[in-house]
């Protein structure tokens, strides 16, 4: 049955800070820049904001999690003098950016605030990114750390290797995703790789990070913030741009039999509750979706989502992404903005912002024709995921 709140809440505007590798500006400055851009995009002021939500955590072992430095929590905006009286706020603790957006949707439906600012800020520290040092292996780590198997990239690589072997696939085929993403980023001013091209040869020559994942299968860490403003659809219709209506939004967790590493036992089964809810709430089916923005922090997650969401069958995603099918003029354009692979590691917030820009016809040289419904899948169906569908009509 269709969601009773379908189309009642909308994303009214989005805003970006500069997207940089390492910045000589503090992260707090990036956050304020993005927040100002988001309210400007609506024709509002920061003083109109009375709701705040983010997923703040820094995603790597070496993070210090200091507000304004490598994370931007709700606290920073609560203390920002330009922000109005805040009647509602939320920090998604161990979720995803979709979790924060969903919190804002629920708060707006409940009337807890009128204009909610949702953001995700990311930071690249000096030196090597996310490299840890350990003198003792405690807790779960005693089963992985003595073997040097401690990083999400290794766990993703292990799951992906099993996927490739199970389906008789070659890692080289994943070049299609990286190349498509780079072409789209080359048409996006909000991307770390706006001006840098990527060739098939570059991909094939790339160094391995943790095989079968090469450099270009990993998203590029950036220092940046993306923000957006959500409000009721009634209010959104009186603002500057066409609203992107929330037709469905949900979350999914996987009951992991083994939490030491990622297993990818059955990502289709794990994703099923979320996917079923999305199609039921929105009244749409995969064939109704004009564009898919698929989380690609490590590129194979995009493959798993294509299968879990029902855009293709089990083990078919690698074939699906070939031959231009996911290009801007293909059957299902994917990551039209460059994805995290080529826009930068914004943890899914870039995916949602792009869906909004496409829906409201503001994607410039990468605009897809008639994108009446866009699906965003965040996280990974083998771990935990979040997803939403945005539409042009409520």
């Amino acid at each position, binding site marked *: 049955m269709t969601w009773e709140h379908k189309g009642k809440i909308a994303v009214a505007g989005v805003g970006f800070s500069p997207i940089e590798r390492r910045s000589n500006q503090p992260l707090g400055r990036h956050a304020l820049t993005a927040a100002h851009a988001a309210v400007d995009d609506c024709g509002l002021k920061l003083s109109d904001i009375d709701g705040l939500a983010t997923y703040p955590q820094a995603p790597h072992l070496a993070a210090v999690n200091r507000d304004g430095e490598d994370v931007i929590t709700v606290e920073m905006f609560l203390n920002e003098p330009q922000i109005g009286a805040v009647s509602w706020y939320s920090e998604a603790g161990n979720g995803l950016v979709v979790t924060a957006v969903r919190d804002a949707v629920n708060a707006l439906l409940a009337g807890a605030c009128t204009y909610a600012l949702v953001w995700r800020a990311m930071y690249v520290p000096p030196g*090597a990114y996310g490299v840890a040092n*350990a003198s003792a292996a405690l807790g779960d780590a005693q089963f992985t750390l*003595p*073997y*040097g198997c401690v990083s999400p990239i290794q766990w993703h690589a292990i799951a992906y*290797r*099993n996927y490739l072997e199970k389906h008789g696939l070659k890692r080289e085929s994943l070049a299609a995703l990286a190349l498509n993403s780079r072409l789209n980023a080359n048409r996006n001013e909000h991307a770390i790789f706006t001006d840098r091209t990527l060739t098939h040869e570059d991909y094939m020559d790339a160094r391995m990070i943790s095989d079968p*994942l090469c450099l270009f299968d990993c998203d590029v860490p950036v220092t940046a913030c993306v923000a957006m403003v959500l409000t009721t659809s009634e209010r959104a219709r009186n603002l500057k741009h066409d609203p992107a209506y929330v037709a469905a939004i949900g979350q999914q967790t996987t009951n992991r039999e*083994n939490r*030491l590493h990622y297993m990818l036992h059955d990502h289709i089964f794990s994703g099923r509750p979320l996917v079923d809810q999305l199609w039921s709430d929105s009244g749409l089916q995969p064939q109704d979706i004009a564009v898919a923005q698929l989380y690609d922090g490590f590129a194979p997650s995009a493959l798993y989502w294509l299968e879990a969401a029902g855009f293709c069958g089990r083990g078919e995603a690698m074939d699906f992404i070939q031959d231009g099918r996911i290009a801007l003029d293909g059957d299902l354009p994917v990551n039209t903005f460059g994805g995290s692979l080529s826009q930068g590691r914004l943890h899914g917030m870039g995916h949602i912002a792009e869906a909004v820009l496409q829906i409201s016809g503001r994607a410039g040289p990468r605009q897809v024709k008639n994108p009446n419904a866009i699906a965003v899948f965040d996280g990974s169906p083998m771990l935990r995921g979040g997803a939403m569908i945005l539409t042009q009509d409520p």
Partner: protein
Amino acid sequence: MSGKGRIWSWTTTHRSVITNFDQVLPYTCIVVELEEQAGLFLVSDLVGRELGAELKVGLPVSVFFAPLGEKGKVLPQFKLDQDRE
């Protein structure tokens, strides 16, 4: 426990993720499914294998216990089992 299992999957890591292992880069980590029970997994590094040797899902491995630091501690590790197919 027999100490026997089969490779479920693996990765060879080329970039530093933990500085303690920088001296042994690149190295291969495996997930072993133990013979005693389907779905019972252990993580290990794969010892005694030349990098570049062909690995496959399902290759047999067996445990050995390597001394670790002082006080008689040992670390269970796995190596390819040449005696089984």
